[in-house]
């Protein structure tokens, strides 16, 4: 959970010079899950969502979440253009963000060191295009790495490319397109001619697999799994439904409403997976169903208060700390031992000085025990966010007290 603030988000751009990328990134994210589109599909009302998100919405409500037009999952169509946009953006994101965040720290250091005083933003952006012209040595290495990564990626392209050497005709049983010279199977040529733009086969470096329409040749490699049809549950008797779940290979225990919900979830997971360019295995889908089972299905706690993970309002901290006093003592002792050992191994000379500080840390730890038992277990969690409403409240109250004018 401590990764809350490492979660990439459109707001990452806000305090950089590229804050205008915030709306761009928002537009590449699904409005339902707020994540980047995953297998985006378009509805009949022309709204785009992740395949799984919209399937879940449609199976609960039957309406588009954006405009509330009725729709059916059968009418969903894949939105390749959006998928390509997302993939391209995600590829570029880390390096662009790094560059955008750099001026505040590194540029200043560099100015200090007397190098790269005039590294303009424009030029930094150019580096993204892997242009190897006149970029500072350090950046160049980086952009080269990027290029290299890209080159290794597009192994999915199945079309044989020979644009490098037009004289050479490989004996591979393929024929070349009369317009663009791409080589392909004889029977695929006519289909290809319908959409051939005449552009010569692009050089390898640009061909991120996804950027091309899927070539007919690669389609037969993995036959798309068959979609599951929706079931009108009211027409099925319990035993039939149970058998159906068993035939699908998913758990078939529990009361009838649970069986229906489980089947719906499985159907959504399965059919969304059918929309994927790289479908997952059934085992992975079963794991996802298991997560669902534990959070929303038969193994979830109806109260929502998962045992012990939340401190209740009426939590008796004093009783808890007396009950577990020995445990805390042991934990504190262990921690002290470890930090002492660490100090001794790293800076042996500093040990006497450090020993004066040790009691302070231990006092803090002990003070924290009775009031906040939870936090002791996860000392690494960034808790700054946890209680931020409270200080704010105090401030606000003070402010209000100052400005409040009692009427009359």
């Amino acid at each position, binding site marked *: *959970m*401590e990764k*809350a*603030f490492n*979660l990439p*988000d*459109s*707001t990452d751009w*806000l305090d950089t010079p590229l804050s205008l990328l915030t709306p761009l990134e928002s537009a590449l994210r699904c*409005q*339902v*899950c*707020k*994540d980047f589109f995953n297998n985006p599909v378009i509805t009949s009302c022309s709204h785009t969502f992740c395949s799984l*998100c919209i399937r*879940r*919405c449609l199976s*609960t*409500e039957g*309406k588009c*979440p*954006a405009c*509330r037009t009725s729709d059916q999952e059968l009418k969903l169509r894949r939105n390749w253009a959006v998928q390509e946009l997302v993939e391209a953006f995600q590829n570029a994101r880390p390096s662009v963000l790094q560059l955008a965040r750099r001026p505040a720290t590194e540029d200043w250091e560099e100015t200090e060191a007397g190098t790269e005083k005039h590294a303009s933003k424009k030029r930094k952006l150019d580096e993204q295009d892997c242009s190897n012209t006149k970029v500072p040595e350090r950046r160049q290495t980086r952009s080269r790495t990027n290029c290299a990564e890209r080159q290794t990626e597009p192994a999915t392209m199945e079309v044989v490319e020979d644009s490098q050497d037009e004289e050479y005709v490989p004996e591979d049983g393929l024929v070349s397109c009369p317009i663009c010279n791409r080589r392909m199977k004889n029977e695929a040529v006519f289909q290809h001619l319908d959409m051939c733009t005449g552009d010569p086969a692009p050089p390898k470096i640009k061909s991120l697999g996804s950027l091309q329409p899927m070539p007919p040749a690669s389609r037969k490699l993995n036959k798309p799994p068959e979609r599951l049809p929706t079931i009108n549950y009211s027409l099925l008797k319990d035993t039939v439904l149970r058998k159906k779940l068993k035939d699908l290979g998913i758990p078939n225990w529990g009361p009838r409403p649970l069986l229906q919900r489980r089947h719906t979830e499985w159907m959504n997971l399965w059919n969304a997976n059918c929309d994927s360019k790289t479908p997952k295995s059934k085992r992975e889908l079963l794991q996802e169903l298991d*997560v669902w089972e*534990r*959070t*929303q299905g038969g193994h*979830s706690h109806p109260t*929502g*208060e*998962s045992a012990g*993970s*939340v*401190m209740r309002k009426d939590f008796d901290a004093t009783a808890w700390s007396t009950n577990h006093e020995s445990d805390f003592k042991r934990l504190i002792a262990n921690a002290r031992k470890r930090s002492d050992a660490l100090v001794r191994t790293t800076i042996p000379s500093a040990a006497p000085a450090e020993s004066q500080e040790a009691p302070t840390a231990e006092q803090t730890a002990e003070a924290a025990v009775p009031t906040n038992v*939870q936090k002791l277990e*996860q000392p690494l*969690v*960034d*808790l700054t*966010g*946890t209680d*931020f*409403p409270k200080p*704010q*409240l105090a401030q*606000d*109250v003070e402010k*209000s*007290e100052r*400005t*409040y004018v*009692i*009427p009359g």
Partner: protein
Amino acid sequence: MSTVAQKRLFHEYKNLSTNPPDGITAGPVTEDDMFHWEALIEGPQGTPFEGGVFAAELKFPKDYPLSPPTMKFVGGGVWHPNVYPNGTVCISILHPPGDDPNHYEHASERWSPIQSVEKILISVMSMLAEPNDESPANVEAAKMWRERRSDYERKVRDEVRKGLGL
């Protein structure tokens, strides 16, 4: 194990912390449980609620954002036609489109998975400014608001002052 709901709530939390709307603060009570939030809303200016700070708790269902959260003002009642005496907020954006017990809400005002905590809190803020007395949650307050507006406003101001400990 991070579910869709948790991840989405993380996104909303981060968004609200880095880019908070005016007069609104919100976040999980503890990061161990993303399904239980606390929110603070400033009373809108130019209304009897001005100057007040209202704390509320939000509880999210496990299938969020398919279903809406519930929202309840804590620590002292909010005297308002659309707030139940126990603090629960009754506002159309918190009602799933499936059931309309009140038969007056337009589907377009109701909960949808593309709504968010931010939109809920903004709606609640504007609800404080402009009560909807068509289907009041607090009948007494609605009656007072409709028939004796100055009494209503005085009562609200008194509550606000009490809430601030004055």
